[in-house]
C-alpha cells in the first residue's frame, strides 16, 4: 500500500474514481458501457498523439509541431485517395510516411543544431502549416471515398442499447490500442526504450554510457511524426471532413494530458499507464461536465481546478518524501525493497 502511494498514477486513479462516482451520482448514464465505448472512440485521436508526446517528453524534448504534421499528413492522404483511389492500408501508409518524414526533419534539426526543441518545433509548425495553407488555399475536403466512410463504422464488438442503436469497440479505438501496446513494448523491453529514458534523464551520462543519442533523438521525433500521421487518419475517419485548421491549436491539450499523467517537462520521467490515465481524466472530466449539466461557461474553470488538484497531490507527496528522508534512510528504504 505504502509503495503504491509513491506512484503518481495511484493518485490519478483515486481522482478518476472519485470523479466518476460524483458524475454517476448525478447522471447514471455516465457509467454505462455505451458511454465508455463512445469516450474511447472519440478520444482515440488524442490518445494516439499523447503517446507520441510522451516519447518526446521522456527524451527531454518537446514537440509543438505535431498538430501541423498531422494536418499535412491527413491532407495529403485525403487528396491522394480521392484522386487516385486506394484502400485503407494505402491511406494509413501515406499518412504515416509523410508524418514520419516531417518528424524526422524535426529530429535532425534538434540534434544537429542543438536549438531548443520548443523553438525548432514552433518554427517547423509554422513552416508545415504555412506551406499547407499556401498550397491548398485553405480549402476543405468533404467528399471522402465511400470505403473510407464505411471503414470508420467497423466495430470489433457490437452491442445494442435500449433503443436498438448499435455501439461497441470501434476499429478506431483498436488502432489506439495497438499504438499503446507498441509503446509499452518499446519503452519496457528494448534497449531503445532504455536509451530514451537515459538521454532524457542525463544526456551527458547517456553519451558516456555509450547510448547513441543521435538515434534515440531522431527516433522519438520520427515516432511522434508517425503517430501524428496516424492520428490524422483517425481524425479524418471520425469526422469525415479534412479542414486545414481543425487540428492546429490542440497541441497544448495533448501536452497537458501527458504532463498530467506524470511525464516531466525536464525529461527522463513518464509512463504509458500515466499517459493513458491523463487522457482518461481530461476526457472523463469534459464528458462529465456536460452530463452533470454544468453550464459551459464553467468548463475551463473546472478543467483548471482538476489539473491543479491532481498534480498538487502527487507533488506534495514527492516534496514530503524528499523533505523528510535523509540519505541514509533513503538507502535503507531501498535496501528494504
Amino acid at each position, binding site marked *: 500500500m505504502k509503495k503504491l502511494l509513491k506512484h503518481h498514477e495511484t493518485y490519478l486513479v483515486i481522482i478518476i474514481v472519485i470523479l466518476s462516482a460524483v458524475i454517476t451520482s448525478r*447522471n447514471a448514464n455516465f457509467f454505462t458501457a455505451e458511454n465508455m465505448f463512445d469516450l474511447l472512440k472519440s478520444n482515440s485521436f488524442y490518445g494516439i498523439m499523447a503517446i507520441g508526446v510522451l516519447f518526446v517528453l521522456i527524451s527531454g524534448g518537446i514537440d509543438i509541431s505535431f498538430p501541423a504534421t498531422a494536418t499535412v499528413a491527413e491532407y495529403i492522404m485525403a487528396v491522394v485517395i480521392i484522386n487516385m483511389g486506394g484502400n485503407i492500408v494505402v491511406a494509413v501508409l501515406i499518412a504515416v510516411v509523410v508524418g514520419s518524414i516531417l518528424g524526422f526533419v524535426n529530429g535532425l534539426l534538434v540534434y544537429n543544431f542543438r536549438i531548443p526543441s520548443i523553438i525548432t518545433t514552433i518554427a517547423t509548425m509554422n513552416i508545415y502549416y504555412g506551406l499547407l495553407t499556401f498550397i491548398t488555399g485553405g480549402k476543405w475536403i468533404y467528399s471522402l471515398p465511400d470505403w473510407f466512410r464505411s471503414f470508420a463504422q467497423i466495430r470489433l464488438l457490437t452491442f445494442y442499447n435500449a433503443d436498438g442503436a448499435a455501439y461497441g469497440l470501434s476499429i478506431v479505438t483498436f488502432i489506439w490500442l495497438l499504438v499503446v501496446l507498441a509503446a509499452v513494448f518499446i519503452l519496457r523491453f528494448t534497449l531503445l526504450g532504455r536509451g530514451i529514458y537515459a538521454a532524457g534523464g542525463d544526456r551527458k551520462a547517456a553519451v558516456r554510457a555509450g547510448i547513441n543519442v543521435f538515434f534515440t533523438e531522431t527516433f522519438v521525433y520520427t515516432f511522434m511524426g508517425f503517430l501524428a500521421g496516424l492520428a490524422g487518419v483517425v481524425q479524418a475517419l471520425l469526422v469525415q*471532413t479534412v479542414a486545414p485548421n481543425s487540428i492546429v491549436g490542440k497541441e497544448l491539450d495533448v501536452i497537458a494530458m501527458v504532463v498530467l499523467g506524470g511525464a516531466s517537462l525536464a525529461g527522463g520521467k513518464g509512463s504509458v499507464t500515466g499517459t493513458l490515465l491523463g487522457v482518461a481524466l481530461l476526457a472523463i472530466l469534459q464528458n462529465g461536465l456536460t452530463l452533470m449539466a454544468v453550464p459551459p461557461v464553467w468548463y475551463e474553470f473546472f478543467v483548471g481546478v482538476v489539473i491543479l488538484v491532481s498534480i498538487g497531490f502527487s507533488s506534495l507527496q514527492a516534496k514530503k518524501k524528499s523533505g523528510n528522508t535523509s540519505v541514509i534512510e533513503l538507502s535503507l528504504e531501498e535496501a528494504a525493497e
Partner: protein
Amino acid sequence: MKKHAGIIILCICFMLLVPGLFAGGQQEAADGELEIATVVKITGIPWFNRLEEGVKQASSELGVKAYQIGPSDADPAQQVKMVEDLVSKGVDAICITPNDAKALEPAFQKAADKGIAIITHESPDQKGKDYDVELIDNVKFGRHFWDMLAKYMGDSGDYAIFVGSLTVPLHNLWADEGLKYAAEKYPNMNLVTERIPCGEDQELSKQKTLELLKTYPDLKGIIGFGSLGPPGAAQALKEKGLDGKVSVVGTVLPDHAAPYLKEGSMQHGILWDPKDAGFAMTWIAKQVAEGKAITNGMEIPGLGKVMLDGDVIKVDAVIDITKDNVDSFGF
C-alpha cells in the same frame, strides 16, 4: 565565397519574383475603366475565396477592373497599409471588410481627401465610409433559426444551442436575439443548457451531442452557429439512430452539409452567400464612383431591392439550404 553566392542568388530570385507578384495590380486600367479594389480580412480561407468569385463576376459583368487582395492573417495593421497603398495608387473605389474599424479611420480620411469611395461590409458603425453593405439583418437572421427549428421539431420541447466560442460576437448576438424572440413566440421551447462553445470543431460538436443525448433524453432540436457544429451533431445523431428524431438547424457551407441534409440527419441550413457580398460591394462602389445616388428600393441585379438606413445598405439575401436545393449553390 560559395556561401555568398547562395545569398546573392537568393536575393536576385527575390527581386525577380516580387515585382511579378504585384504586377497584376499594376497594369494601367484600359481606356479609363473604373478600378475597384476589394480588401478582405484574410486571404486563403473558403469564405473569402467565395467572396472573390463575386468580385470577379462583378468585374466581368459590370465592365470595371475589380480585384481582391487581403493580408495573410487577420491583421489590422496590414489592412491599413493595403488601403494606404491603394490610395497612393489612385484607385477609384475601395471595398473592404474591416478587421478593426477604428484603425482604418485615418486611412479612410486620406481616401476621402483624394475622392476615393469607401464601401464597407460587416461594419455598419464604421466612421469614414461612404456606405456599408449588409446582406443580413442580424436580428431577423437570429430569429429565423428559431422559426425554422420550430418548423421541424414543433413549437414545444427541449433544444440546445452551439456557438463557435463564447466570444464570437455575431454567433452570440444571433443567439441573444433568437432567445429573446423565442421567449415571446415559442414559450414552450425549452433551452436545456447554456450555449455550448463547440461550433468551430466538428469532432467536439459530435462528442457534445452524444453527451447531450445522454443528459437530456427528451432533446428534440439543436441550433448550431459556426459551420462545423451542425455536421458534428448530425454525425452523432446518425450514429445513435436518432437522425430525423432530433432536428438540426444551423449555419453551414452547402457542400459540406450536403451528405447530412440528404441522409436526413440534418434538416436545414441558413447562411448568406459571401459571393453576393463581393458582387454587391463592387456594384455599389461603381455607382458611387460614377456619382450616381443610392436610393431606397433600388435594385442590385440578382440580389433584389435595397433598404437604405442612413449610410447602411441592407439587402435581404439570406439563403435557406435544404436537401432539395443544396447542390445548386456551388460552394
